[in-house]
C-alpha cells in the first residue's frame, strides 16, 4: 500500500519538448513524464464499481474527510478513502479481510461530498464474496442459524414467544388472539431470545399494558427481519425472511407497526417496501414519545443517576431520529442526561451493524479494541453511571465491553428498562 503520490521524486522538465510534432515546451511538459500512476490497478476499483450498488466507490476523490469520522479507523486503520486507495494499489476488496470490517454506520456518507456510499457498496461486494464461498466462519454460523431457525441466535422458532411466559402482564399472540389490534409489536430476535433482550421485552410489555395499548405480537410466526444479514452479504436469506414476515404482517389487521430495534425499523421502512410491503413502522421510542403526556405522570420513581445515551446508527443517522429517545430519558425524574462528544449525527458505532454483531473475533485481528469497548470508555470519561441504549444489539455488546475494560460500575440499560424502573420503583 505504499505506492503513493509522493513517489514523484523530481519534477523534470525538458528544455524543449515536441510531441507528435507539436512543440509543448514549457513548465507543463512535465505532464508527459511517466509517473507512478501507471502502477495503479483501476480494474480493481471497477470490479467494485461495476456491481449494482457499488458504483459510488469510483467517485472517491481521496479528500479523506471520511477517515476521522470512521469508527473503525478510530481503533484501527480503515475508511472509504483507504479502501479506495488499497483497491487502487492492488487489493481485491472481494477477497480482502477488510471487506468485513465496515459496520455500515454511514458516518462517512454524512461527510462525503462525493456521496461514496458504503451502505450500498458493502452489501454489493459481500454478496459476491458470499456467492464465491468467502464468508468468515462466525458469520457463516449466523447465516446458517438464521436460515434454519429464523434467528441468528440458533434458538428454536417455536420458542420465539417463550419469553412471554415470564411476563406478569398479558402479551397477546396474534394467532391465538383472533382479533384486530391497534399496535402490532414486532419484538425481534434478540428481545425474544437473549436474556438481556428479554428484560427489555418484558419492560416493553409492562409499559404497553400500563398505557392501555391494544397490542399483539406474532410470536412463533415472527422471524428475524434479515436486514443485517443482507448488509453482511446474504441478500437471498434477507428476501426469504422478508417474504415470510410480509405475509405475516398482511395476515392480521393492525394500525401501527412498532419495532423494538432500529435495524428492524430500517428493514420495514426502507427495504421491505422494495418487496411490496407498503406500510410504515415506528421505533418504540418514536411510538412512546407520542404517549408522553400519558406516560409522564406514571414515571413516579426517581432514578438518580448520570446517564448518557448512545445513538444507534440505524435510528440516528439512518432514520434521523435523535430526539425521541432523549425526550423519554428527560421525562424520568432524577435522571441527569449528559451527552458524549460523539453523539447525535456524529454518534459512534457499537460495532454491531452490517454483520459486525457476528464478527467480533474476526474483527479483533484488525482492531486495537472493540468498537463497543471504545464507546464504553467514552461513556465513562463523560462521567456516566448508566449507558442508556435503545437497540437490542447493544445491551449485551456494551455490558461485555464494560466488563472487559474494567468498568463494571457502568450499568447498561435499555430505555425501556429505565422507563419501567421509574414506573415501578
Amino acid at each position, binding site marked *: 500500500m505504499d505506492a503513493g503520490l509522493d513517489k514523484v521524486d523530481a519534477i523534470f522538465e525538458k528544455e524543449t519538448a515536441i510531441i507528435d510534432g507539436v512543440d509543448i515546451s514549457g513548465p507543463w511538459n512535465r505532464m508527459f513524464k511517466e509517473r507512478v500512476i501507471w502502477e495503479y490497478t483501476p480494474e480493481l476499483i471497477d470490479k467494485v464499481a461495476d456491481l449494482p450498488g457499488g458504483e459510488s466507490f469510483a467517485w472517491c476523490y481521496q479528500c479523506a474527510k471520511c477517515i476521522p469520522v470512521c469508527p473503525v479507523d478510530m481503533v484501527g486503520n480503515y475508511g472509504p478513502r483507504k479502501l479506495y486507495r488499497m483497491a487502487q494499489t492492488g487489493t481485491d476488496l472481494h477477497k480482502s479481510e477488510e471487506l468485513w470490517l465496515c459496520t455500515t454506520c454511514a458516518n462517512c456518507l454524512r461527510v462525503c461530498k462525493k456521496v461514496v456510499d458504503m451502505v450500498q457498496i458493502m452489501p454489493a461486494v459481500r454478496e459476491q464474496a458470499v456467492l464465491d464461498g468467502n*464468508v468468515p*466462519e462466525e458469520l457463516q454460523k449466523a447465516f446458517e442459524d438464521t436460515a434454519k*431457525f429464523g434467528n441468528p441466535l440458533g434458538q428454536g422458532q*417455536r*420458542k420465539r414467544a417463550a419469553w412471554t411466559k415470564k411476563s406478569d402482564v398479558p402479551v397477546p399472540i396474534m394467532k391465538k388472539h383472533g382479533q384486530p389490534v391497534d399496535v402490532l409489536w414486532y419484538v425481534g430476535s434478540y428481545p425474544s431470545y437473549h436474556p438481556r433482550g428479554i428484560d427489555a421485552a418484558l419492560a416493553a410489555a409492562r409499559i404497553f399494558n400500563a398505557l392501555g395499548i391494544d397490542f399483539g405480537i406474532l410470536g412463533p410466526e415472527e422471524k428475524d427481519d434479515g436486514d443485517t444479514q443482507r448488509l453482511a452479504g*446474504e*441478500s*437471498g*436469506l434477507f*428476501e426469504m425472511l422478508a417474504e415470510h414476515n410480509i405475509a405475516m404482517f398482511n395476515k392480521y389487521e393492525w394500525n401501527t407497526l412498532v419495532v423494538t430495534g432500529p435495524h428492524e425499523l430500517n428493514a420495514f421502512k426502507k427495504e421491505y417496501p422494495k418487496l411490496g410491503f407498503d406500510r410504515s413502522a415506528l421505533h418504540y421510542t418514536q411510538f412512546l414519545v407520542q404517549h408522553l403526556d400519558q406516560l409522564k405522570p406514571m414515571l413516579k420513581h426517581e432514578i438518580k443517576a448520570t446517564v448518557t445515551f448512545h445513538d444507534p446508527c440505524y435510528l440516528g443517522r439512518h432514520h434521523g431520529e435523535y430526539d425521541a429517545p432523549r425526550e423519554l430519558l428527560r421525562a424520568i425524574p432524577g435522571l441527569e442526561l449528559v451527552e458524549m462528544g460523539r453523539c447525535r449525527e456524529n454518534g459512534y458505532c457499537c460495532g454491531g451493524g452490517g454483520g459486525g454483531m457476528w464478527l467480533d473475533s474476526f474483527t479483533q485481528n484488525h482492531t486495537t479494541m472493540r468498537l463497543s469497548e471504545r464507546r464504553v470508555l467514552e461513556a465513562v470519561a463523560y462521567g456516566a453511571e448508566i449507558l442508556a441504549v435503545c437497540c437490542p444489539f447493544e445491551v449485551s455488546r456494551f455490558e461485555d465491553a464494560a466488563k472487559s475494560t474494567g468498568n463494571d460500575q457502568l450499568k447498561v440499560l435499555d430505555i425501556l428498562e429505565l422507563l419501567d424502573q421509574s414506573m415501578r420503583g
Partner: protein
Amino acid sequence: MNIVVAIKHIPSLADELEVNDEGTNLDYDMVDFVLNEFDEQAIEQAVLVKEASGGAVTVVGVDVIEELDGVLHTALAKGADKAVKIVGDLEPGIDSHTHARWLADAIKEMDADIILTGVQAADDLDGQIGPMLAAHLDMPYLGVVTGVEVAHRVATLYKEYAGGMMGKYAVSLPLVVGVQAATKPPRYAPISKIRQIAKTAVIEEIEVDDDGPGAAVMLRKMSPPVSTGHANMLPGDAEAVAEKIIAIIKERGLL
C-alpha cells in the same frame, strides 16, 4: 464414480422437546426437523471427494414429514448433482432398521461406488444406519471417519482414535463410510442459490409402504429424565467463591 450420501431428517434440538400424550415418543407436532449434522459432514466430504477425484454425488433420504426438499436443495447448492427422496404415507419415529432397508433398496439402483452417511444421528444415537446399509448392500463398512480420499478405485480413509492416534485405511471400492467429520468444515450455500435451485431442480421420488417397525425393538415409554441431583451456586465475588470451593474440597477429602 458414483458417490451416494444417505441422509436423515431429525427433530431439531433447538426446540424444547416434548413427549406425546401417550408417553411413547416425542410429540413430533411440536418440533421442527433439521438435517442430522453428521450427514451435513457426509455431504461436505462427498463434494470434496468429487472435487478432488471426479464423479457425481447423489443425496438420498427418507422424507418423513414431507419437508425434505429444502435439505435436498441445499445439498444441490453445495455441489451434489442429484437428489432422491423416499416417500410414502409415513409417520415420524421410523427406526433405523426400516430407515436402512429403504435407503439400501434405493441405493441398490444407483450403482454406487462409495456411500457416505453420518456416523450417527442425534435422534437415536445408535449409529446403525451405516453398518446396516453395508450389510444390505454386501459392502465393507468403516465408521467414525474424519477424512476420505479416492484414487484408482481405492479409498483412503482416516480415523481418529483416542490418545491422539490416527488410523489410515486403504479400502477398495465399493464401500460404506460412516462420517464423523469432513476434511473441511461444511461450506456455506447462499440462500439465493438454494432458491434458484428450488425453482428448477427435479427431485426423484421413490415410493415405499410403511409396514411397521423393522426391528424387534419397540419404544414403549418415553419421559424426560428426572433430575436426581442439583447444582449448588456459590454466591459472592471471585475470592469468596474460591475460598468456598477450597473449603468444600477439603471437607469432602478430595485433596
